[in-house]
């Protein structure tokens, strides 16, 4: 998958070329969403009571955000021609800057959620070697979500879209 700088689009947009295999990986990773539960979030590490009282508000806000992202994701993937065939084994798809931001958050939820599921291991120099089938799937999703995050961020750093 790679970013294709485009001068043709009137509206700001990011265009990506992606192989059939990468489409399958991306869809596979996105099926993991959401991974994080509201209990993951902590408003404070301190003892200030007035801050602790806001913990529930944070959890509700994160749950609401996930519902909204899930809805956006379903609409995004259901859009006809989302991945447009460009050539043998090659597709193109487009993201608006707004879609880019929530997709980054969705991918990060999968990445961090899988890391939590794996027991929050140190990932460098190497992740755990003995894995169950479920852990292996989580590790694959963690790595693939990071891969797609890097490609999206590379586009953010590239030429201005539009």
């Amino acid at each position: 998958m790679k970013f294709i700088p485009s001068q043709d689009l009137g509206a700001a947009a990011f265009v990506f070329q992606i192989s059939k295999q990468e489409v399958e990986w991306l869809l596979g990773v996105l099926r993991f969403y959401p991974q994080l539960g509201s209990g993951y979030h902590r408003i404070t590490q301190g003892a200030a009571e007035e801050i602790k009282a806001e913990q529930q508000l944070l959890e509700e806000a994160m749950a609401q955000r996930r519902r909204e992202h899930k809805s956006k994701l379903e609409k995004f993937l259901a859009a006809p021609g989302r991945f447009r065939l460009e050539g043998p084994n090659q597709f193109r798809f487009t993201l608006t800057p707004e879609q880019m931001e929530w997709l980054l958050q969705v991918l990060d939820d999968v990445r961090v959620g899988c890391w939590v599921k794996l027991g929050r291991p140190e990932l460098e120099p190497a992740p755990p070697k003995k894995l169950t089938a479920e852990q292996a799937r989580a590790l694959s999703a963690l790595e693939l979500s990071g891969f797609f995050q890097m490609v999206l961020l590379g586009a953010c750093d590239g030429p201005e879209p539009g």
Partner: protein
Amino acid sequence: MRPFSRLAQKPGRCYISGMSQTAAPIAPPKTEKTEKTEPRELRDRGYVVICWNDPVNLMVYVTHVFQVVFGWPKARAERHMMQVHQAGKSLLARETFEKAEHYVHQLQGYGLHATMEREE
């Protein structure tokens, strides 16, 4: 934080050191400076927003999030990201209760380990 994914190191892939220059910062709620609200404003001052290190969020992603949430230029965002990475945490903002809470919600929405604390 991880520098980058091993998959992203494959030759021929495209990547990155960078960040969005296009996203507008997410505006925190405004606190009106009227006589009526000033006492609350004064009482609330002294909350800090801290981002803590973790081994899973990519460094380039953390920099991007700081740019988007705070509207910082890339150099400042990278400076705080490196502080998180090397020192284990970085103090990102010193704000009123409401604004600090807003920032924590935004940062946690992006999956970062961020908290607000009362400044001693």
